[in-house]
């Protein structure tokens, strides 16, 4: 039944994955159809080969390790500098806020004292 085989062929990339659930009619067709079994065998062979690719390694270009470690060092230093700057900024901001608060308090106290002097009858 070529039509059914064509329909099944679309599903084989999923069927080959043993972790994926397979509908019973699909399973039954594959069990009884040599063409689909051959096609499934191709997918299985392909997956086995892909798993073997995991055992191959590409040789990194010379200097890549040193460059990678250097880039991490540079990023760490930037981060440390930023951290110090952030702390200093916070300290400056705190100092400025304190000074402003102190000036405000002093001004308020002076204004209050002046107002009291004005209200006292001579």
């Amino acid at each position, binding site marked *: 039944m070529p039509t059914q085989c064509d329909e099944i062929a*679309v599903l084989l*990339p*999923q069927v*080959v994955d043993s972790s994926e659930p397979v509908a019973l009619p699909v399973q039954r067709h594959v069990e009884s159809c040599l063409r689909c079994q051959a096609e499934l065998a*191709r*997918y299985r*062979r*392909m*997956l086995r*080969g*892909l*798993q*073997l*690719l*995991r*055992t*191959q*390694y*590409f*040789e*990194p*270009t010379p200097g*890549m*390790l040193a*460059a*990678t*470690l250097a*880039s*991490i060092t540079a*990023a*760490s230093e930037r*981060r440390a500098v930023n951290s110090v700057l952030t702390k200093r900024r916070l300290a400056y901001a705190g100092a400025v806020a304190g000074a402003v608060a102190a000036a405000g308090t002093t001004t308020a106290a002076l204004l209050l004292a002046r107002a009291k002097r004005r209200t006292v009858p001579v």
Partner: protein
Amino acid sequence: MASDFGATGPADLADVVAAAREGDRGAFDEIVRRTYVDTYTLAVRLTATEEDARDVVQEAYLRAWKGIRRFRGDAQFSTWMYRITANTAATVSSKRRRQRTVHIDDVADPVETEVALHPELATENTELLGRLSAALDELPPRLRTLVVLKDVYGLSHEDIAEELGISVTAAKVRLHRGRKRMRDLLYEEDESHADAV
């Protein structure tokens, strides 16, 4: 922070990772030394260019260093690193797609293989692995990423979907399309020969 790693002989990777999580920079350097060939290989498989792979490796380790405290240790470090590499490769590839000039043909062939250590496997599989590599390189990047991460590196659909910012369903659909394209690239030539005979 001072580090003992690298001075006192090989330690278990889990111990090195634990020290790096505590902020030991020397321990993190040791992780890079031990894993960068693997990370580079994945980057080459994902980007299909040596130039992009180099950038991906550097950026991936930077991200790993910044995020090492968030590594919970309930998964293997290698899986965590693969996920970061996949995410970084997606970012780098999308930035570079328009200006790509170097292709996988310019990347050296894989030189160190466990298969090569077993001659009987090497004889049997060398041709297949070469064809598979070539077919992978022919895939569009979005399909290649899925096939590499799932079928070569064994990541889960959930992990892949999360790193690529897509749904699990979309990840599965792309994987199945990728496998179908791979199958066509690998076997259609054989089929046309068979038809001609």
